[in-house]
């Protein structure tokens, strides 16, 4: 396939993200990467579970966590997962405008999530003097949740960069895989969050 065909395809194939060899490679490679990320987060979860009792007698999970904010954050992130599904739906139908729109919604929801998280951390630090350094539990909590937050931030920047870069030229076989794997990444972030709200917050509240 010549470069011209890739950038200006006469007709979009059924699965544009996997139409070229490069696309297929990206697709498989990114999934494999997510397999590795699974282990990475498992190690962080394991560390958290091993240390969540090491609170040095203060600021225990039960005491700290409030479920309202976590619920809102969960809803934001779950919904953003759906909106990115919408975006991919429109990509497959070769409707670039709608795809951009839904990606935009995804980014806004993601920003909302991130804002809540920053607020939450600030709250803990200022109200409870509960920091990264106060106990092993503090270190483990901020590391696990912070790693996830970092992923959110990276995902947002990535999707935004893709949207801006391609805003003028529309969809083609070169950027379709890029959009696709960015959305995979976004879903994965949601997967991790499901475990975070379950293991850290809900189970923390149960004690």
């Amino acid at each position, binding site marked *: *396939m*010549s*470069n011209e065909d*890739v*950038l200006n395809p006469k007709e979009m194939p059924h699965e544009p993200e996997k139409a070229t*060899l490069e696309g*297929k*490679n990206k697709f*498989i*490679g990114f999934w*494999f*990467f997510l*397999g*590795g*990320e699974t*282990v*990475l987060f498992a*190690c*962080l979860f*394991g*560390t958290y579970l*091993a*240390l969540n*009792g*090491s*609170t*040095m007698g203060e600021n225990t999970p039960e005491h700290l966590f409030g479920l309202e904010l976590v619920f809102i954050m969960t809803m934001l992130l779950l919904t953003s997962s759906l909106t990115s599904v919408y975006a991919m739906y429109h990509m497959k139908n070769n409707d670039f405008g709608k795809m951009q729109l839904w990606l935009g919604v995804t980014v806004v929801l993601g920003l909302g999530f991130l804002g809540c998280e920053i607020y939450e951390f600030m709250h803990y630090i200022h109200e409870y003097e509960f920091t*990264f*350094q*106060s*106990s*092993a*539990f*503090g*270190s*483990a909590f901020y*590391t696990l949740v912070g790693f996830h937050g970092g992923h959110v931030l990276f995902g947002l920047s*990535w999707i935004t*960069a*893709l949207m801006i*870069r391609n805003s003028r030229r529309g969809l083609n076989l*070169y950027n379709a895989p*890029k959009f696709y794997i960015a959305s995979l990444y976004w879903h994965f972030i949601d997967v991790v969050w499901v475990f975070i709200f379950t293991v850290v917050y809900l189970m923390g509240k149960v004690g």
Partner: protein
Amino acid sequence: MSTAVAQNRGLGAAIWDYLTTVDHKKIAHLYLVSGGLFFLIGGLEAMIIRIQLMEPSNNFISAGLYNEMITMHGTTMIFLAAMPIIFALMNAVVPLQIGARDVAFPFLNSLGFWLFLFGGLILNISWFTGAPDAGWTNYAPLSTTSPGHGVDYYVMGLQISGAGTLIGGINFLVTIVNMRAPGMTYMRMPLFTWTVFVTSTLILFAFPALTVGLFLMMFDRMFGSAFFDVALGGNAMIWEHLFWIFGHPEVYILILPAFGAFSEIFSTFSKKRLFGYSAMVFATVLIGFLAFMVWAHHMFTVGMGPIANSIFAVATMAIAVPTGIKIFNWLFTMWGGNIRMTTAMLWSIAFIPTFTIGGMTGVMLAAAAADYQYHDTYFVVAHFHYVIVGGLVFGIFAALHYWWPKMFGQVLSEGLGKLTFWLFFIGFHLTFFIQHFLGLIGMPRRYWTYQEGQGLELGNMISTVGAFLMAIGTLVFLYNIVQTAVKGEKVSGDPWDGRTLEWAIPSPPPHYNFKQTPLVRGLDALWVEKMEGKNGMTPAEPLGDIHMPNNSILPFLMSLGLFIAGFGFIYQVDNKMWLILVFIGMGITLGSMLTRSVKDDLGHHIHKEDLEKGAGE
């Protein structure tokens, strides 16, 4: 190696070419040269260790320096010598063996290399400011409380080079999954490719554990967190588990490609197809699978309790079964064959008893209770040098002699090769066999010195003598490389009467590897054609334009950025001004990443007409 190119276009252009290359064959050269240099440095450190231990109460180097020496020896050898040389072989051989023109992610391939190199540089720069001294296993709290910046260098260096390895692993996984030539089913893949596939999978799942461990270590040392600090409720065991969840698969990451190379060599030089190919594949996969269930055998004495110890003991022993399958299959590959004693074959043949001994001591170590005696003694040192040097380093030597013509178009001198072999082989056994007994009679490892009158003098002396023989052997090998390069005799594409696809193309292969993608019709694809009296492979496609990736300096820049940021992280503990380096470095890296994602890079085409004229070779 690229001397010819250099003379034509000037040194600057050649260096630029290597800085920007995304060609897997050139990246193989880069890996080989840097891995080789690190091997020499690691070997030098080993020699210093051996000289210090030559006699009791020796004072050749100080106690603190000794700990730095063993730490750097272990770290350098494993991460900066063994792994990269394996990556050199993977890059040089795998795409050719599966009939691909390139790897799946040429850009990432180059990024992986530069990350490894800059990580390695960080580690070794620590020699100028105080090297890490907590052992290559870097157990907390010894590491978290180690004064100076040595351990910080360890953390940053391994973090960066580890990222490179992970990227490299994913690249090879996808290459093998997606880029195989038509007809090359999984069960027709050469065994080396299979082992690389499994090794890459292990990399994918093992390295994240190291990444997390290193992050926690970094946070504890540089940002005041308390993961391993018992005073704040931390737990030092977490590091040990994370390290070994990575560390045990790591040893199979190292050995499996060597197994693959031996499989190719045994089969080629016995002129027989590999005995029990499917069992070999099965065994490889099984070893990879079991590799993740046994890590705690390094921790039998930390007090996990008898239940955990027993489970891990039995699981560990299980690995002997697939490994045994391999040993016997190799023996029966030679059985009934027509064995040619080339240098590559010599190394491979020597590997069998050596590795069997190492594996057997491994099983002895796996007997949990007995490990209460062996653990952290020279018995363990003997075990792992038998498997690592006797398995992996022998494998590297064998593979280098075997694939040297493919990589560089010249055959290494067989005479010098055999001399290297005998020196190294004898030296190796002198050095390490005796160490089993040193351990059993009570010599712990990581001992800067031992007292007189403990009966350890003779054994240590012998061991040191052996190490010198190995060093001489290595020097002969270096001389061999130089002499071969100077002689510059060209060799055909298929000097060994090979069986697999890489021997179907010229040596060294042209930029695009295969002019026309070959059609694979069975295991040992080239051999199949040879047996039908054909000269080469049947093409699977008509001659057409070939799509190739573009060179790029970005991988180098991204890695350079992290290198700079690494120093910022290390020294911001002393003075926050150093954070400037973090910003500059991360700026370079993120900027390069952004450039990469907004600038289209569609590669270029080599045109059909040029191919017909034979350009690009």
